[in-house]
């Protein structure tokens, strides 16, 4: 069995608990941020190499699909950042925090904090999207 097949089978079928899910979410949100950064570096490069293409890219970013993508991007940044701080703190300063009960609790708190940070910005971004793209809220 190839490593990729084993890895994906494990990710999907292994019934781990909070740690497994926070590991997966950390990985997915990390990939989301990397994807955004890659696109962002490419489109900013257009300013120098091909300004017309840059304007077209900006047009695409104003579409509803990209607007929704950006809302999820903010979640990716918040979750990845907060979970990264949790892992760094436990690993570097408090190894005894890697205990079954406290780890489950800290993983749940991490998700809660990321959602609390994300929801207000998601609300404003969604409001702006509906205002500019659909003329709602006096747009």
């Amino acid at each position, binding site marked *: 069995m190839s*490593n990729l097949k*084993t*890895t994906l089978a494990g990710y999907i079928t292994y019934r781990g*608990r909070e*740690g497994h899910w926070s590991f997966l979410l950390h990985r997915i949100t990390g990939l989301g941020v990397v994807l955004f950064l890659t696109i962002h570096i490419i489109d900013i490069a257009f300013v120098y190499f091909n300004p017309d293409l840059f304007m077209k890219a900006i047009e695409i970013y104003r579409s509803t699909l990209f607007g929704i993508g950006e809302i999820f991007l903010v979640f990716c940044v918040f979750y990845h950042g907060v979970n990264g701080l949790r892992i760094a703190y436990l690993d*570097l300063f408090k*190894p005894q*925090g890697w205990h079954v009960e406290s780890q489950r609790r800290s993983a749940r708190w991490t998700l809660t904090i990321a959602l609390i940070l994300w929801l207000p910005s998601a609300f404003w971004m969604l409001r702006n999207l509906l205002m500019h793209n659909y003329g709602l809220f006096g747009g």
Partner: protein
Amino acid sequence: MEVRVRVFRFNPEVDRRPRYDVFTVEAEPMDRVLDLLEYIRGDIDGTLSFRRSCGHGICGSDAMRINGRNMLACKALVKNFGTNEITIEPLLGLRVLKDLIVDMEPFFEHYRSVLPYLINDEPLPEDGRERLQSPAERERFDDTTKCILCAACTTSCPSFWADGRYVGPAAIVNAHRFIFDSRDRGAAQRLEILNQQMGVWRCRTAFNCTEACPREIKITQAIAEVKRAIQTGRLD
């Protein structure tokens, strides 16, 4: 109660790909999954292959994936699953030799790579007997002495699934057992081994290992302590 047991089957000499056989067996709530497997092998299908030895959670022979989680079949009670459907699969990340038996050699190779034995070339104490240790010094590594090398931790680790060269949680636990032993003098050697690319830094703290350990060893904590010892050079 009637239990429907789905068992992973694969005989590389005959089968092109794995399949799942379903056996319906009568079981008591306090029966262990190992009892179900023994019944199936003894009374229904004698070709079913799995490892077992002591049957009491000490030898570590019968680690397998039961309903998606690594555990010892001899410690898994039917009543604890809360369902009449039980799926039994081999450990993930190690080559399947037959049915529920996996090739443990890569696992033991990693174990041997961390020098899991006392290293001390200093002369014996004057009385020629034991090297004494205080209760506090013994307590420092007590948790990691409990490992039974069942591989439930290493094969639940996403980093090990991705790359079998990763030394894995079990090997790190057994390195920890000697690194923090006040009688041992091989800590620097082991820390150097574990500071390699496939050493402790591959740990992504997914915590599956600690959840899977049938001996309830605080594995992720032990790994973090080894990481810290590498960073600081201190063994306190």
